[in-house]
């Protein structure tokens, strides 16, 4: 689950970076940037959750 979280962090970053480079108009740019941030937040959630589950199991 942690690996998935990190992959989502990277994927979201690629979306955010690609938006200003590839999209000329403001509205799609903002939409893509927000979507990318959303993907990253999901990735961060998965990464920290994976850590918590691991620590609780380890006791």
């Amino acid at each position: 689950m942690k690996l998935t979280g990190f992959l989502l962090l990277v994927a979201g970053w690629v979306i955010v970076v690609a938006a200003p480079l590839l999209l000329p108009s403001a509205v799609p740019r903002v939409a893509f940037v927000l979507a990318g941030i959303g993907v990253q937040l999901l990735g961060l959630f998965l990464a920290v959750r994976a850590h918590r589950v691991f620590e609780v199991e380890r006791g």
Partner: protein
Amino acid sequence: MIDLPLPSLSQSSATLCFVLILLVPLAAAGLALVNCGLGRSRSAAHMMMASLCVFGVAALVYVAIGFSWQGAVGRPAHVLMIAGKPWNWIAAEPFFLRGLRLDLSADSLIVLLQVLSVGLAAVIPLSAGSDRWRLGAACASSALLAGVTYPLFAHWVWSGGWLVQLGADCGLGRGFIDGGGASAIQAVGGLTALSVTWILGPRRGKFSREGIPAAIPGHNAVLALMGCLVAWLGWSALNSAGAILFAGVDASSVVLIVLNTTLSAIASALSAAVVTRVRFGRPDASLTVNGWMAGLVASSAPAAFLKPAAAILVGMVAGFLVLSSIDLLESRLAIDDPGGAVSVHAVAGIWGLLAVSLLSSAGSSGQWLAQVAGISTLLGFVLPLTYGLNWLLNRFYPQRVNEEGELQGMDLYELGAGAYPEFVVHSDEFTQRY
């Protein structure tokens, strides 16, 4: 491809910058004192020793190879073309600073500031690994930070890289703005701290089998509070020198920058003190220390562009944020970060980056998108990279001390002597044994 001009400094501005840069190590010294005070007495000497060692290793590695990847504005760099737009991703300098004239030029002042800044960034994760991070592993980790993570990201932010060029290339305000290192120093250090604490795991007895955290208080509030004042001087110098050299701010703005840095720290510390007073019935010294440091960190990016009232607001928000974050990390996410490095440096640093577009005079059309792109890069590039590097290091060179070392304390186990030999160390300092 690089259209950002190198700042042209008058003789007096260059001299002022040089004097400011000489004060920057006080930021690391203050941070080391804070980390030491918030840790246990049986690892106090180890913390100070580790601070000195990682500062030194990071500076050496940066001089050897780090600057080759980071470079400076107007110097050689590798540029990709993506959709017809330049993407300056890494510098192309020779190793060991060859080819640089080391005088009072802007180039050489930038190198000097960077050598000290990377040392500061390397000290940040130490508190997250307090009581269980081996000295050798901490040094190796700081070498990776100074040789790979820091210079790559700092190139993007400060050396004409793609983040700072988002304004010129994509019309996003003035591009990513970070005058004093809220991202390149603080957030990079804070995210490395998160990686380290994930890899090391919590201290023995920190969490019960049900995941409930035990309080392990710091051993010396006096050291921690003294560290705040020392750090303030270093931070004021860092924010000022950074704003002049990286953001092109006029040297006469130094007074405003120092004032804003101070106001932000005070507001953050007081808001932390008030919140803990309301919540626990008494102001909490260690959380107030964290609040002070968070105010300094949050001021790093926007200090040169804020009005004093806005600086106070930045600090107040930083104080609330750092308390919430410390509580969330420890109580809900089982992250054992004894000195609060993740909350103080990563969370408050990110807030400072956002404040540039929300509250400062630097904000213009699209500026917030540039700041968000920088924050996204911290989460999507720096965090996976620094976690991956430390995970790899841990595979070949285990970073956590063994059980005996943890029970004995890092001072005796790794250094052979305690920080306070004339005192009897009390029984395991409130740690639960299983």
